[in-house]
C-alpha cells in the first residue's frame, strides 16, 4: 500500500549538457543554463512555463537572474551531492501543495575547470577547527575514513571492494557518453595496482573529476500524460541529514541518513528491496555503494563485500559481475561516478540514468524489461542522504 504523495508527480523532462568532461569554455552558470534549456526542450516546455526553481551549486537568486525568470517557488537546499535527489522530493510536495506546477531542478558544476566555483568553509567552522588542521584535503581523505572500521567489524576486504570499480567499468564500456567508454575493462587487480591516493583507496577507487550538468522537469501525474516522453512516476522519496564532519559519524559502518531516507522511500512507495529492478547508488568512491546496499536493506549488514565480489564466467570466458551487465542486480548502469562522469554533486546524473533506463532509451546498456528504479545518494561524506523510487508504469 502506498502512502503520502506516492504517484502524485512525474518526471517529464530530463537532459544533460551537450557535453560532459572538460568544458573550459563554460562557467558554472553557463553549464546550468545549458542543462536547463536542454531539459525544457526534452519536455517541450518554454522557460516561461517554469514556476518552481530548485538549484544549489548556483543559488536560486543567481540562477533566476541568469535565466531571467521569477519562479514563485524556490528551494536552495545544499547538502552535497544528494541535494538534487532531495529536490525531487521537495518538488513533489510543492506541486501537491499547489505552490508550483512546473518544477525545474538544475545541476551544473565546473568541477574540473573550476570556473567561478567556491572553496572550503571558514577557519571558524567546526570542520575548519577540528578536521582541516589534520590534513584533510579532497574527498578521498574523508570518504575513506569509515572503510577500515567496516573491514574490521565485518571482515570486508579490499579485494572485495576492488570489484566495484571493475563491475562499474563494464557498464561504461557500453555507454558512448561515459568518459571511460574507450578506456577498456579493468580488473580488481588493476584497481589495486593503480596509484595509492589515500589508503584504502587507490586511484581507481575514486570517482572522476569533470565539468557538466543536467536538469529535470517535474509536474503533476495528471498533467504528465500530455508530454512527449513517457512519464516517470515518483513512487517514494526520503531524505535525512545526520552530521557534517566525517569524524562525527555515529557509527562508521552505517549511514544513519541512508537508513532514515531509505525507509521513508520504501514506505511511501509500498515496496521492498525485492521489488526494485535497477539501482543507482551514488559511487563517489568504490566503498559508497557497498554501504548503501546494506543500509537500504538489499543485503544484511556486512554482506556487501561478498555480494559485489560474486562473479561468474560467461560461455566466452569473460567475467560477469553480479552488479554489471548480465548480472542479477544492475547497479550504476551509466558507468557511475567512477567511470561515467563526476562533477562534484553527481546526484543529478544518477537520476538522469534512472530516467533513461525507465524510458527505455539507454541504448546498448539498456536493462531489459525494468519497471522500477531506486536512486540513492549521499550528501558530503555519508552526512546527508536521499532516496527516490521511480517507475515507468
Amino acid at each position, binding site marked *: 500500500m502506498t502512502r503520502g504523495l506516492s504517484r502524485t508527480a512525474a518526471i517529464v523532462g530530463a537532459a544533460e549538457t551537450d557535453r560532459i568532461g572538460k568544458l573550459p569554455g563554460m562557467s558554472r552558470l553557463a553549464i546550468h543554463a545549458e542543462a536547463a534549456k536542454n531539459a525544457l526542450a526534452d519536455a517541450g516546455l518554454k522557460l516561461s512555463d517554469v514556476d518552481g526553481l530548485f538549484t544549489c551549486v548556483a543559488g536560486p537568486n543567481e540562477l533566476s537572474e541568469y535565466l531571467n525568470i521569477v519562479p514563485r517557488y524556490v528551494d536552495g537546499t545544499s547538502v552535497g551531492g544528494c541535494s538534487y535527489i532531495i529536490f525531487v522530493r521537495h518538488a513533489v510536495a510543492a506541486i501537491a501543495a499547489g505552490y508550483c506546477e512546473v518544477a525545474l531542478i538544475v545541476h551544473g558544476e565546473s568541477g574540473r575547470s573550476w570556473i567561478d566555483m567556491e572553496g572550503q568553509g*571558514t*577557519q*571558524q567552522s*567546526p570542520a*575548519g*577547527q*577540528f*578536521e*582541516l*588542521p*589534520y*590534513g*584533510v*584535503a*579532497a574527498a*578521498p*581523505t574523508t570518504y*575513506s*575514513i*569509515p*572503510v*577500515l*572500521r567496516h*573491514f*574490521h567489524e565485518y571482515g570486508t576486504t579490499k579485494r572485495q571492494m576492488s570489484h566495484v570499480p571493475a563491475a562499474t567499468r563494464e557498464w561504461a564500456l557500453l555507454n558512448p557518453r561515459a568518459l571511460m567508454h574507450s578506456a577498456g575493462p579493468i580488473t580488481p587487480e588493476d584497481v589495486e595496482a593503480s*596509484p*595509492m*591516493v*589515500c*589508503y*584504502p*583507496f587507490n586511484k581507481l577507487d575514486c570517482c572522476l573529476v569533470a565539468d557538466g550538468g543536467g536538469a529535470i522537469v517535474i509536474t503533476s501525474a495528471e498533467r504528465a500524460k500530455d508530454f512527449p516522453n513517457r512519464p516517470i512516476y515518483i513512487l517514494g522519496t526520503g531524505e535525512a541529514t545526520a552530521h557534517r*564532519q*566525517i*569524524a*562525527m559519524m555515529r557509527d*562508521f559502518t552505517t549511514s544513519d541518513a541512508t537508513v532514515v531516507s531509505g525507509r521513508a522511500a520504501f514506505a511511501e512507495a509500498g515496496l521492498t528491496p525485492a521489488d526494485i529492478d535497477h539501482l543507482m547508488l551514488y559511487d563517489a568512491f568504490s566503498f559508497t555503494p557497498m554501504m548503501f546496499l546494506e543500509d537500504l536493506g538489499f543485503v544484511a549488514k556486512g554482506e556487501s563485500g561478498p555480494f559485489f565480489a560474486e562473479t561468474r564466467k560467461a560461455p566466452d570466458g569473460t567475467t560477469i559481475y553480479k552488479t554489471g551487465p548480465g548480472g542479477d542486480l544492475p547497479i550504476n548502469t551509466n558507468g557511475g561516478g567512477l567511470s561515467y562522469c563526476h562533477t562534484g554533486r553527481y546526484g543529478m546524473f544518477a537520476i538522469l540514468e534512472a530516467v533513461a533506463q525507465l524510458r527505455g532509451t539507454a541504448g546498448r546498456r539498456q536493462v531489459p524489461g525494468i519497471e522500477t528504479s531506486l536512486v540513492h545518494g549521499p550528501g558530503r561524506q555519508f552526512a546527508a542522504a536521499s532516496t527516490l523510487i521511480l517507475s515507468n508504469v
Partner: protein
Amino acid sequence: MNAVEAYGGALPKPTPETQAFWDGTREHRLMLPWCTDCGRPHFYPRSICPFCLSAKLEWREASGRGKLHTYVINFKAAKGFTKVPYVIAVVELDEGPRMMTNIVIDDPTPEALPIDALVEVVFDDVTETITLPKFRLVQQ
C-alpha cells in the same frame, strides 16, 4: 623566521564555545566539555550538551588516552603538509567522545596500525598560538 610563518597547514580559529579547548591544548592539556546535568562529555565543543541540551557545561581535563577507531593513510599532501604519507585518524577517547587527529608515526603501514590499538595524546605546537592534539601508539 618565526613559527607562524613556517607552518603552512590549515589552522583552526577558535569561537567562543571552543576557545577553552584551544587554550587547553596550548598548555598541553586535552580539555573536554562535560555536562553537569546528564554527566556526559562531548566533542567537538558546543554551547549546549548534544545529549540533553543543557547549557550547564564545565571543562575537565581528559586522560589523553584512547583507541584508534579508524584511519586512513593519505598519500596526497594537503596544503602545508610536507611529508607523505601521513595518517588521518579518528580516535575514541577513554572518556567516550571521538575526535579526528593525526597519528604520529614514521612510515605508516596498515600492519603497524591495528584498529582499536591503544593511543595517547601528544601536543604539536604548530604556531605560537595554536597547538594541535595528535596521538601516538602506546608501546605495549
